[in-house]
């Protein structure tokens, strides 16, 4: 029983990270109908920015003295990483996706794959291919509850993810830009006809999605201990599946999808075999697309001819 609970806790924390990344996918797809393959790499860059920012702010010194990294500095690291990722996301949108926005769907898809490959290999060159240990931006404290071990890092992941998702929800529902984003995802041409500056809104979408992914990246590093330049590929793909599972274009859907994928992965690894942990995500993808392609929370759009 404790093993089961442990797997659940682990699955939920991993799932929260997937949810953060999935939000970016779902928002971009909702508006542009584009699978932003490079989003996984933005997640990776966010993690590495946190790594280098923490280093620059002297985390090594605190570790050597076994002192905790001050909370205000940890928040600073988070903000720097989120800002850097937002910048990267907007740059990618401007340089790579905007020129092909009016092209038939295959072209942006391949462009996205190209950007993803570019960032992966550039990351290998810039960040060195060796896995790096993530600095202790948060020092680890363990609790044991009914035989299940929970660390404060896992609790932080839940807390940060929850805050960010609530913040996004409020943003999308209450602010002007949020409303514009919803309008664009309904019908981008009508929105433009209504006088909305679509370029600005799309830029904002990319920026927000990338910032969330960066937060996910830092949390991932804290939880998984090591990062490497190729970490974005598979994690990004799983997050995309999470977005599809929840209903692409639906923000609550992305959250639920992320948690479900995280749970499925952990339970498969624990009870079936770790070798199939990646395969289960793809199996879920195939099943959902065959049985309920609009996702759990999505709405079936009927195409009239």
């Amino acid at each position, binding site marked *: 029983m404790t093993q089961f609970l442990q797997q659940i806790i682990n699955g939920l924390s991993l799932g929260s990270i997937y949810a953060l990344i999935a939000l970016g996918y779902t928002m971009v797809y909702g508006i542009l109908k584009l699978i932003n393959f490079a989003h996984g790499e933005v997640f990776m860059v966010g993690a590495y920015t946190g790594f280098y920012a923490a280093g620059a702010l002297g985390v090594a010194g605190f570790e050597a003295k076994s002192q905790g990294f001050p909370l205000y500095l940890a928040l600073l690291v988070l903000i720097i990483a989120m800002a850097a990722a937002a910048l990267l996301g907007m740059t990618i949108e401007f340089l790579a996706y905007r020129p092909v926005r009016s092209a038939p769907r*295959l072209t942006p898809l391949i462009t996205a794959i*190209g950007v993803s490959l570019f960032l992966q290999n550039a990351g290998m060159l810039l960040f060195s291919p060796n896995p790096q240990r993530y600095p202790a931006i948060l020092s680890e404290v363990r609790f044991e509850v009914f035989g299940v071990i929970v660390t404060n890092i896992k609790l932080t992941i839940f807390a940060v993810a929850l805050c960010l998702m609530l913040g996004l929800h409020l943003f999308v529902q209450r602010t002007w830009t949020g409303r514009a984003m919803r309008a664009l995802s309904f019908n981008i041409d009508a929105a433009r006809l209504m006088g909305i500056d679509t370029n600005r809104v799309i830029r904002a979408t990319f920026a927000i999605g990338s910032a969330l992914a960066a937060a996910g990246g830092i949390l991932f590093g804290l939880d998984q201990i090591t990062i490497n330049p190729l970490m974005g590929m598979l994690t990004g793909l799983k997050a995309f599946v999470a977005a*599809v599972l929840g209903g692409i274009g639906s923000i609550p859907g992305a959250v639920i999808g992320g948690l479900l994928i995280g749970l499925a992965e952990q339970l498969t690894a624990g009870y079936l075999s770790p070798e199939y942990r990646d395969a289960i995500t793809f199996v879920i993808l195939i099943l959902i*697309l065959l049985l309920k392609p609009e996702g759990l929370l999505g709405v079936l759009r009927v195409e009239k001819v």
Partner: protein
Amino acid sequence: MRAAIRLAIAAAVLLAIYGLMLGVEAGFTEYVQRIILLAGINVILAVGLNLINGTTGQFSIGHAGFMAVGAYGAAFVGVKLAGPVHGLLGPGAFADALVFNLALLAGALFAGVTGLIVGMPSLRLRGDYLAVVTLGFGEIIRILFNNASFLGSATGYFGDDPSGLPAYTNFFWVFAWVTLIVALIHNLTFSQTGRSLTAIREDEIAAEAMATPSTRLKVTAFAISAATAGIAGGLFAHMQAGVRPEDFRFEKSIDMIVMIIVGGLGSISGAILGGIFVAVSLELMRDLQQYRLVLYALLLILIMIVRPEGLLGTRELHHFLRRKKSATTPAPPTGRA
């Protein structure tokens, strides 16, 4: 009479290939010869993939999985058949050729069946969703091979001999199969069925309104495309010491996509050019050391932004020679959902 003429042409072509082989083996180093063989295998991959991605407009990005099935299938069958066939016919080139081609056909069969299994559920989806599902299937196939202990798991399948799989693949067989497959697919593309496939690409709903059995045709095209990837896989397996799951990662599927994009999505001659391009360009870029892959990715992005229809668009080389306006539109296929 026509059958006899066709046979004569086929024999002449085969003889020509054989003659070319002697020339190539005499004139070039082994290093260059291998690149030529890889280019030929790439051509088969590209032309096959072009049938489903280009002509039919259904985007599949997991084809490396079918190549893997063909490679493993051909390797396994080849190793198991070698004993009985050599027992019957004795050692020698003829027996080898028989085993090899039977193995290739077996690999193609396995790959084609896998294509059917993957295609039937997937081809109900459109556009991006189809792409991601095929990606998923490609990965699942690779993970299955990674866990198949009777096929060597992660180390790979090297047959029963310590020196690995028998090296059946040579210039003659690669280019004989290239000629056969290109001819088959060319005839298919420019036949009534091919026109139906193009109709599906241009506007599937209109095609269905015209009584085109679109799902059945899509699945058939998908299976054929998978089978050709299987042939390429079998040829590839027998020029290596063995086959490993790592050789058929997502990157391999991307390579195949680059081949048909560079040449022009929907053009067979474009696919041929693209296949050769991919085989040769990475080798040429060796001097760029670790910047090689970064530049390759940049190249892909640049092509999509500057000239997404690739070198030839949907036109064929012989359209230029004829100097007539071709009937096909130069626009790349629409992948509407």
